[in-house]
């Protein structure tokens, strides 16, 4: 399984902070995003935003980053701290 986390407005719009997703047929961050976006129209809209960022195992990553079972993958908007 892949642990999937959502933060800030992504979490708020999806109405969930965490889901588990099967790692079967998921090779990259982009494939995970596409699989989650297929949930329904709301998830498609939130997860196809061109501003969406992805972190794999707590490191900001590219969409072609490899993913395997046991990884933690987080989706969130651009950061605004400080």
């Amino acid at each position, binding site marked *: 399984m892949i642990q999937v*986390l959502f*933060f*800030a*407005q992504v979490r*708020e719009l999806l109405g969930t902070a965490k889901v588990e997703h099967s790692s079967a047929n998921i090779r990259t961050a982009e494939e995970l995003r596409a699989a989650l976006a297929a949930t329904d129209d709301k998830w498609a809209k939130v997860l196809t935003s061109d*501003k969406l960022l992805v*972190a794999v195992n*707590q*490191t*900001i990553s590219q969409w072609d980053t490899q993913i395997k079972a046991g990884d933690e993958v*987080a989706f*969130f*908007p*651009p*950061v*605004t*701290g*400080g």
Partner: protein
Amino acid sequence: MNGETIIRVQTHDFSVSDEYALLANDNQDGAVVNFIGKVRDFNDGSAVTDLTLEHYPGMTESVLSQICQQARARWPLNNVTIIHRVGTMALGEQIVFIGVTSAHRKAAFAACEFLIDFLKTKAPFWKLEANETGSKWVEARDSDEQAAKMWQK
């Protein structure tokens, strides 16, 4: 020089004088630079009543630690402190403390600015701003991204 790095993510407020005393305890340092970020009253034209900071526990600490290492690789620093609050803060409250010490001022000024520029664009914190009519997520600013890019030259 092989000073101490302190990184804290916390809900409670911090004391600038206590943090200064901790930072400035080494007589080889001639320069101490502090930056304090606060909740301000207007953002994009609406009056802010309070601010809620969300973060990604674990990744936040790891990114802050990485940017401290990058600053130490660029400048001869001694002590470095980064404190960032999370949770809900009222107008005027302190959000973030950055402190660096060095033998001389130029390294301390530059490193402090580098750390806040990188914190703002790399560390996974998000601001939810509340005003009289409701709340909205703060948008990332291109000017912050430009400020961080300037250090890559």
